[in-house]
């Protein structure tokens, strides 16, 4: 069954109207070197039955490993009601609610979402969401350059403690629009950004400083001092935050004496399963003074002709369907379904529930660090407080250790050697409220065994160890 409504005659007529002979001709400007042709390993077609069988076979090979990897996506308990409600047809099939008279339910839900996220981040206004945390950082950077009218530069200071994916995506999305991201080094004892690293930028024109809290290493940055430094030097502050952590940490709106200007983050921890990396959603909140530079959709509450309250998209005048190339963004959309799940999750948890999730995650992470650092040769890489993940290090490459753990059904953390080679053998571990003391014992026991085995193996094969 064809789901494309255009008949071959329709297509011919449309092509003739614009003077093009084939659909292929529309893509002629893409150089052959950039074309993929066919996708390797992907058959041209499969029936529904064949697809179902293939996917269930592949799903079985995933197993159910015990996961201690965080690094931007976090395993939290999701109450069953969240996805039972989210997958109702009324939510499941809804697209961008441009037509207010037919979309009051979706619009109200997004309005509630915006209210909750603005409240969680301590900011005044939220958009209806973005693709994911990384693209939210890119959008916030572009927004900060537009919003900082005192700065003529397009320079954004980005500490190396910001998630490497966020830094790469922001550079990929915004560098061609003239933005320059400059890396600020971190203190290797503390695993955090220290004031001294910013000193060289004192008398320079900087549009914004990006601060991730907790940072990629799980460590807490001195957000008050960093925020005040940025504002004293004419730069705006973009906060990248974990929404769960905000139940126990100071929200970006209260950082320093004036608060951050824009807060963004990955929304996945709020009721969205890990699902191999996506789809997730990003959030973006700001202060009212910057609302017109905020990308994306915003739902507002209003009154209809009869004076009844209702909801509608608002502040659309700078969106791409109106302002085309000069829109605040042409690479953003909202993630309606994921936001639906997050809104239901936040409603079920409430402020008290979120705080319990955050506190339990912190306690489990401390328990994990304490159990693992009791093993000889394993130590905590950085001094100072962390939220629910931490960097551990040892005197050898960690990839073989993590592989050996994976073969025992334990995902032991993220090897940092590629993004942070200066740390030597180091890996990032995470524990949330989903991990029990037994899980942590199982990891610690397995790691102890694996370390002994890998040591023995390397002694037996000295040639390969060198």
């Amino acid at each position, binding site marked *: 069954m064809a789901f494309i409504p255009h008949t071959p005659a329709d297509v011919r007529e449309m092509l003739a109207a614009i003077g093009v002979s084939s659909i292929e001709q529309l893509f002629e400007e893409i150089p052959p070197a950039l074309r993929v042709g066919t996708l390797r390993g992907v058959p041209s077609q499969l029936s529904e039955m064949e697809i179902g069988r293939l996917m269930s076979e592949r799903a079985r090979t995933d197993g159910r490993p015990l996961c201690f990897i965080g690094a931007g996506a976090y395993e939290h308990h999701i109450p069953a009601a969240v996805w039972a409600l989210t997958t109702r047809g009324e939510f499941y099939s809804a697209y961008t609610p441009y037509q207010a008279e037919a979309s009051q339910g979706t619009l109200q839900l997004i309005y509630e979402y915006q209210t909750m996220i603005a409240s969680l981040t301590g900011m005044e206004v939220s958009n209806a969401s973005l693709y994911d945390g990384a693209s939210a950082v890119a959008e916030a950077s572009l927004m900060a350059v537009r919003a900082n*009218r*005192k700065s003529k530069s397009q320079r954004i200071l980005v500490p190396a403690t910001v998630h490497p994916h966020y830094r790469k995506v922001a550079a990929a999305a915004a560098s061609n629009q003239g933005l320059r991201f400059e890396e600020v080094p971190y203190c290797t004892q503390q695993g955090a950004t220290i004031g001294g690293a910013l000193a060289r930028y004192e008398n320079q024109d900087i549009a914004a400083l990006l601060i991730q809290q907790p940072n990629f290493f799980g460590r807490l940055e001195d957000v008050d001092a960093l925020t005040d430094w940025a504002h004293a030097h004419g730069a705006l502050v973009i906060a990248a935050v974990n929404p769960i952590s905000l139940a126990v940490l100071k929200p970006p709106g209260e950082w320093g004496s004036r608060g951050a200007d824009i807060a963004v983050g990955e929304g996945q921890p709020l009721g969205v399963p890990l699902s191999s990396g996506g789809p997730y959603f990003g959030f973006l909140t700001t202060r009212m003074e910057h609302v*017109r530079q905020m990308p994306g959709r915003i739902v507002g509450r209003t009154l209809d002709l009869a004076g009844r309250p209702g909801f509608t998209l608002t502040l659309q*005048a*700078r969106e791409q369907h*109106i*302002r085309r190339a*000069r829109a605040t963004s042409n690479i953003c959309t909202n993630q309606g379904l994921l936001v639906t799940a997050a809104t239901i999750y936040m409603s079920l948890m409430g402020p008290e529930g979120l705080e319990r999730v955050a506190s339990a995650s912190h306690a489990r992470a401390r328990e994990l660090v304490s159990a693992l650092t009791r093993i000889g040769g394993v130590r905590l890489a950085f001094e100072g407080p962390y939220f629910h993940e931490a960097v551990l290090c040892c005197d050898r490459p960690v990839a073989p250790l993590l592989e050996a753990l994976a073969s025992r059904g334990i995902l032991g953390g993220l090897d940092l050697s590629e993004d942070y080679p200066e740390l030597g053998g180091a890996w990032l571990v995470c524990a949330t409220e989903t991990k029990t003391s037994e899980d942590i014992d199982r990891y610690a026991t397995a790691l102890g065994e694996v370390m002994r085995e890998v040591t023995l193996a390397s002694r037996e094969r000295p040639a390969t160890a060198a």
Partner: protein
Amino acid sequence: MSHVPPDLHYTKTHEWLRTLPDGNIEIGITDHAQHALGDLVFVEVPQAGRTLKAGETCAVVESVKAASDVYAPIACTVAGGNPRLANEPEAVNNDPYGAGWLMRVRPENLASVAALLSAADYTSFLAAEGE
């Protein structure tokens, strides 16, 4: 038919210019432009001290329907934006040639103003556009 005061200069992108006694030039959008945009909800004016090339976008007027750019009609330096518009964007609708001015600028070259459209030229331009 929209109002076109005889003593001002105009552009085809619907800005007007008035030469002030101190030699500065006051710039706004025409009655025709404000009418076409509808009720304005926000006006973004340039910062004082900004230098503008002729044709450069320098302000944004936002109605409930669209956000539109305003172009600098001449090369100039911005002396100041109209502070009243921050809280009262509707002044552009109510009084486009008076209280609704957008910015005051120091022209690079006074002759550049005289080279723009006269009121009569602009009136014929609007007629040709099929107002």
